[in-house]
């Protein structure tokens, strides 16, 4: 036991920058990019899903079902190989993996948005339309501001989920926290100690974030 502790301390003093700066840094960056752009694309999916044009709805339903019904790791593989082939210019692995993560996140978030929008009282739409607002104006001025309250907490949860799921990106050595684990383990052969360190870091990240999120949600409720 004492040996483990001293090994952990030794590893941290030597490789702290690999874990904390490269690892945590890239994990947070990748997660933030994924959720931010995933939210934008998710909104597009959501509008497509609720559109009057049937083929558009079917397309989005198909994407969402495929994303839900296949393993994330497989989706990352597809992104890793497919994105460079589809684009006319060379892209980094980080880029390809980000695209796969974004599409995955967008699919889940589009359903979050949709249920958030549908949770708004239909009477709100009726009142707005009866005043003469168009469907688009009603969406922007009346529905989305009210749906945001339902959606923001779910968006935070998605961020926390994605932090953990980005670990799968280490399969492609894109440099996030789990990649740090692979690198340092390769250099030191101290598997358990390295696992402990990245595990603790993941836990700290998600724990702190979920506490922050809870506090934020409580404030949203108080303002209600």
């Amino acid at each position, binding site marked *: 036991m004492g040996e483990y502790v001293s090994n952990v301390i030794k590893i941290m003093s030597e490789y702290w920058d690999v874990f904390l700066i490269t690892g945590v840094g890239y994990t947070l960056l990748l997660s933030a990019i994924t959720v931010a752009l995933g939210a934008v694309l998710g909104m597009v999916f959501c509008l497509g899903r609720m559109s009057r044009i049937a083929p558009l709805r079917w397309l989005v339903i198909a994407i969402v079902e495929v994303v839900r019904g296949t393993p994330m790791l497989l989706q990352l593989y597809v992104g890793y190989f497919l994105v460079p082939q589809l684009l006319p210019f060379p892209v980094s692995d980080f880029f390809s993996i980000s695209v796969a993560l974004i599409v995955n996140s967008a699919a889940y978030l589009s359903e979050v948005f949709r249920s958030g929008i549908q949770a708004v009282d239909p009477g709100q739409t*009726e009142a707005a339309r009866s005043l003469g607002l168009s469907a688009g104006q009603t969406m922007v001025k*009346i529905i989305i*501001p009210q749906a945001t309250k339902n959606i923001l907490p779910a968006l935070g949860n998605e961020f926390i989920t994605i932090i953990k799921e980005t670990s799968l990106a280490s399969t492609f050595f894109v440099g996030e926290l789990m990649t740090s684990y692979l690198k340092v383990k390769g250099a030191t052969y101290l598997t358990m100690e390295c696992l402990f360190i990245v595990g603790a870091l993941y836990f700290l990240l998600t724990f702190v974030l979920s506490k922050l999120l809870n506090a934020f949600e409580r404030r949203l409720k108080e303002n209600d």
Partner: protein
Amino acid sequence: MIKTVELTKSFEVKKSEPLQVLKGVSEHIKKGEAVSVIGPSGGGKSTFLRCLNLLEKPCGGHIIFEGVDITEKDVDINIHRQKMGMVFQHFNVFPHLTVLDNITLAPVLLKKRSKAEAADQARELLARVGLADKAAEYPKRLSGGQKQRLAIVRALAMEPDVMLFDEPTSALDPEMVGEVLDVIKDLVKEGMTSVIVTHEMGFAREVSSRVLFMDGGVIAESGKPDEVLNHPQNQRTKEFLSKVLV
């Protein structure tokens, strides 16, 4: 002002058997009239009212509003809805906007009023219904009666030619019914053309120029309040009135 011709509406509750809610309603609401619509629950009163501004899409027939057949395909209904105010049973005020913004939203957006101009008009309207001091509040701080008065002036801010009320006092505690009915009464006195679905028989008798009795998807009886409420000809009207105790 509003004329309906053989208006029909069915809901597809189950695929095979559509529920026909309006079975050919022809009615002419003239300028300056205050028409009360009474009748048993499920008789199609709300559906009829909601068809008038196309919140419900009729299945057949025509609606002529100020000379325009708004059931025609290429009609921009949003323009016509600006001229038809609607008040709902459950108020449907916008909870994320202040009282003032509830009122100014549509005029600023649709009538291209300046914010200041719309706010002045809104304050005037609020004063008229006794809510002058609530302008900066959010609707959650209002009572039911206050919310409904807000909903009424929100509609009035668009300067409509006709007001449609769907049971405006049914969701209110009894002590708040009066304050809302008073606002509607004043409007009618000023000559606002109104269609009011209501269960308040006393109110219908006092303010309306005409009463429609709707049952089973048709207007079964129509006439002056005294005719319909005190001397009904139709058997179903008689039955209904004997139940609600005029």
